[in-house]
């Protein structure tokens, strides 16, 4: 087996606050130049994990390795890691230039080098003429860029970003997502990014780490996570989906709504109870209701811009469907599902 080199390794990392385990023995390996996102609802332990990597919280148990060396005893100011904080934490009594120069001044670099590097960084961030500006006078997006510049100017090996776009409005957030991604490619350093926004995570990351209640639920590429969620939580958290309790009759045969569906999943015990995920866009409405695998009545129609979001009710449950064609409320519809659009997941706590 090939031995890959990892930049950061977390081993059995655990942290409790007031007796509650916020991070519960997690293991994670992060490669160089990777864009890793820790994704999960608030309180899932993602920020605490990030803060332990940054050195702001001491782990109760477990190890953090950086380039193969133990990082635990190294204080934050000696780590070659920089952070972009939630709400930026710019120094309010310093102007933009001084904020960015802060780390370099501590390193006691020669004056002209400081000026040169800060100005190069400001230019890169489109902040060329902002050096003398007071940080309070900047817009949210500009403050955000100053915060990133202040961290990146120190040329860290790893940049930690704690919900850096949380305070921005939707449009700006989209723009900054693209900018950040572009920047990461250009400077070529490892980004560890924390967010609760699944769309943001899927758009930006090489690797997504889904966390809940202090545990890692799934690690994978955005495609993996979206298409092959390992459990109900991940499926539910990543985008809207229909999650259905079903029974796996045998390999490639799953039953729900009193109908046996073909699917592509194997490796279950006969009649094992499972969860099935079907994305709303994968439920296809057929022309003749009788020809559908499932029938139901449309109970609500909402226009969402690109598609219509419809709720279809049958005697077992309610399905959410995304379709570009509208079917009025009260109409009978039939739906088909392709075998590869049915994703079967093991029940939590069942089997391995």
């Amino acid at each position, binding site marked *: 087996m090939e031995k890959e080199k990892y930049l950061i390794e977390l081993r059995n990392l655990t942290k409790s606050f007031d007796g509650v385990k916020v991070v519960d023995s997690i293991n994670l390996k992060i490669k160089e130049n990777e864009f890793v996102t820790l994704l999960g609802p608030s309180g899932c332990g993602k920020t605490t994990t990030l803060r332990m990597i*940054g*050195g*702001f919280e001491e782990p109760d148990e477990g190890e953090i390795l950086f380039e193969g060396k133990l990082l635990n005893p190294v*204080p*934050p*100011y*000696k780590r070659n*890691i*920089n*952070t972009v*904080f*939630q*709400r930026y*934490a*710019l*120094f*309010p*009594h310093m102007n933009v230039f001084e904020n960015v120069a*802060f*780390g370099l001044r*501590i*390193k006691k670099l020669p004056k002209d080098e400081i000026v040169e590097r800060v100005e190069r960084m400001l230019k890169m961030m489109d902040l060329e003429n902002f050096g003398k500006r007071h940080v309070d006078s900047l817009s949210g997006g500009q403050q955000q860029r100053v915060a990133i510049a*202040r*961290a990146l100017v*120190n040329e860290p090996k790893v940049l930690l970003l704690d919900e850096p776009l949380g305070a921005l409005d939707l449009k700006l957030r989209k723009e900054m997502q693209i900018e950040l991604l572009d920047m990461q490619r250009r400077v070529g350093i490892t980004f560890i990014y924390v967010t609760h926004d699944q769309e943001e995570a899927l758009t930006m990351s090489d690797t997504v780490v889904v966390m809940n209640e202090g545990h890692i639920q799934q690690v994978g590429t955005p495609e993996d996570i979206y298409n092959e969620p390992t459990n109900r939580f991940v499926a539910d958290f990543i985008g809207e989906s229909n999650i259905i309790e079903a029974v796996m009759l045998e390999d490639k045969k799953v039953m729900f709504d009193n109908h046996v569906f073909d699917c592509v999943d194997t490796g279950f015990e006969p009649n094992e109870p499972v969860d099935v995920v079907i994305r709303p866009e994968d439920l296809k409405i057929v022309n003749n209701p009788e020809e559908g695998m499932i029938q139901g009545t449309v109970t609500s129609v909402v226009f969402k811009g690109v598609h219509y979001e419809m709720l279809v009710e049958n005697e077992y449950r309610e399905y959410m469907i995304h379709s570009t064609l509208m079917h009025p409320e009260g109409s009978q519809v039939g739906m088909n599902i392709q075998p590869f659009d049915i994703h079967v997941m093991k029940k939590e706590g069942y089997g391995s």
Partner: protein
Amino acid sequence: MKKLAVRIYMGLIFLFLYAPIIVLIIFSFNKSKSRGQWSGFTLDWYADLFKDRLITEALYYTIAIAILATVISTIVGTIAAIGIHYMRGFGKNMMLNINNIPVLNPDIVTGVALMTLFISAGMKLGFVTMLIAHVLFCIPYVILAVLPKLRQLNRHIAEAALDLGATPSYALRKIILPEIKQGIISGALMAFTMSIDDFVISFFTAGSEVSNLSIMIYSMARRGVKPTINALSTLMFLTVVILLFIINKKSGEGEELLL
């Protein structure tokens, strides 16, 4: 009609508030020593003021104590406030509650309690005991002024400094202190005025050999006050008023400072 009533009412209130001050000022120019009798204009009392050793000495003690108490309590109070800010739970509540005791306890109780401590510990009442007492009642005000500023501070700002390579002490000096400067200054101002103005606690902790202006005025008021005191209070009052007007004009936040 209503407006007139409001004006008259406010006029009467201000007359009530300023009557004694005006009387003091008028009698500082009165030739006669009598408190009620006007017998001609003089500036003698102002001239005497600076010759009177009792008064100059009391003035010296008042100012020396106020300056020392301000400096010490501002430094100690600021450091303590930062420490308390980073504490949690029971310990923090305990610290805050004990810190509030000198603020809420009647001065006379604080005064006699300190006096019993000093005497029981075999200390001689004097300059040092009075200074300790002043530092004691000034620190809580500094802490109460600095804590809100710390609370306003972005929680991550000190971490950001560490993250960028600052040692904890560098972060404290270059990031936290400049951010809470306003609180420290208003705490110091409060400490200074509390110290200058204090009578009760000084009275119990100063002993018989040292006295500040308040103690001197108290003992004189019982025996009969020399008109020089009128002159002194006029001067002190004018200084304060002029200072206040300057601060008010300059900063516009005079209201905040005063309150």
